[in-house]
């Protein structure tokens, strides 16, 4: 089945899974930052311009891990709310079937308490769902913006790598490539998530 034909609570779970993948890649970016620092130290004066960049790579990795972990939690919460909303919507449908089936029954009004309570619960879940969806949209956009610096960092890293001696050039270029490919992979997961979120916004 294609993702877009899933129910909304499944889409929310798929978003959580996408962000989980992004978090794992962001953690790898952290390792890249540590490696970059080690290579820069070994390269000595030849990579003097590269060293400050490793701090930026490290910072980017930290921010990305933090943001993607938070967004992952947010998506997991959204998935839980969506599943509860589905369960509550289902209960409302069943109650409405009872009102039809037992129309005119002496005790039919006694169902009102359960129906009203479930309706109240449905309203709370709906508003919570909207809030979570809106927050998720903002956070995804913010993370995507943060990742734009990765392209600049990769370019600067390449420039600095070309200044280093031949012995370290390849290692430093690898660092630049890793930063670029990690950022690109995370961006892909974010774009997929954003597409799924826009599906949810249309359904809501």
């Amino acid at each position, binding site marked *: 089945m294609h993702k877009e034909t899933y129910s909304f609570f499944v889409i929310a779970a798929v978003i959580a899974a996408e962000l989980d993948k992004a978090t794992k890649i962001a953690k790898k970016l952290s390792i890249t930052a540590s490696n970059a620092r080690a290579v820069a130290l070994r390269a000595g004066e030849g990579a003097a311009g590269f060293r400050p960049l490793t701090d930026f790579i490290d910072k980017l990795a930290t921010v990305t891990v933090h943001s993607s972990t938070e967004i992952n939690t947010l998506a997991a919460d959204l998935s839980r709310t969506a599943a509860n909303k589905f369960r509550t919507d289902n*209960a409302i449908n069943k109650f409405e079937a*009872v009102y039809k089936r037992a129309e005119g029954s002496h005790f039919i009004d006694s169902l009102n308490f*359960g129906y009203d309570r479930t309706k109240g*619960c449905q309203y709370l879940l709906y508003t919570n769902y909207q809030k979570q969806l809106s927050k998720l949209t903002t956070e995804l956009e913010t993370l995507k913006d943060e990742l734009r610096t990765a392209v600049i960092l990769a370019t600067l890293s390449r420039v600095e790598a070309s200044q280093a001696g031949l012995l370290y050039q390849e290692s430093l270029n690898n660092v630049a490539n890793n930063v670029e490919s990690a950022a690109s992979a995370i961006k892909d997961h974010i774009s997929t998530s954003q597409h799924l979120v826009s599906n949810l916004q249309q359904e809501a």
Partner: protein
Amino acid sequence: MKSYTIFENPSHKWIVLGRDVDKPDNIIDTNQYVVITKKNTLLMDPGGIELFSAMLANVIKLVPVEQITHLFASHQDPDIISSLGLWDQALQNATLHSPWLWEGFIRHFGMEHISYSAIPDEGSDLKLDGVNLEFFPAHYLHSSGNFNVYDREAKILMSGDIGAALESADAPMFVEDFDSHIEKMKMFHQRWMPSNEAKNDWVNRARALDIEMMCPQHGRIFKGDDVKRFLDWFEALPVGILHTK
């Protein structure tokens, strides 16, 4: 869904709901039993999600929702209690009585408002407005944690899967010819019941009860001498048998 009153006296009545012609295909037909006392109502094995609307629509023809105060699940199967999450939304102040063994499992059906009363292995009593109902152990028949409900005053044993038969939704509510009914029960008991020892222990304890009606969760109700016929037949039946085609 049809509704029959099978017992009534000044203190309480027993009603069976079942033979739901509107139920979706490919789900097993079930009997749901209801005991109504002065201020309380007990629903026994209230059934699956698919049955919920029909079941609630029928029950509120009998009592207001706030009077549905107790649920009983003989064991953890979906045809017994998968509707729990919906009852949980509908009821105001209810208790579910079920084997202690299944509490952690049954809660997976969704239970935020209803409270769980765990029945110990040896069984226990439930008193509703002076009417005493006994949770009668029936472990391994078929579930490893399993109870029947016995009403000494009405002489009714709600026997869960014991005495169950697989037949169509338009079958009569009572056994009319025991011998011809055997074929509808045999495979069910041999395949679903795993233990001869547990079966014979239950038969011996059930023989000590005064039973006028034995009410299974699937199939037909046994009355009078057919109860004794069933106990004799069940005692002689080897169970835990895999039928191969």
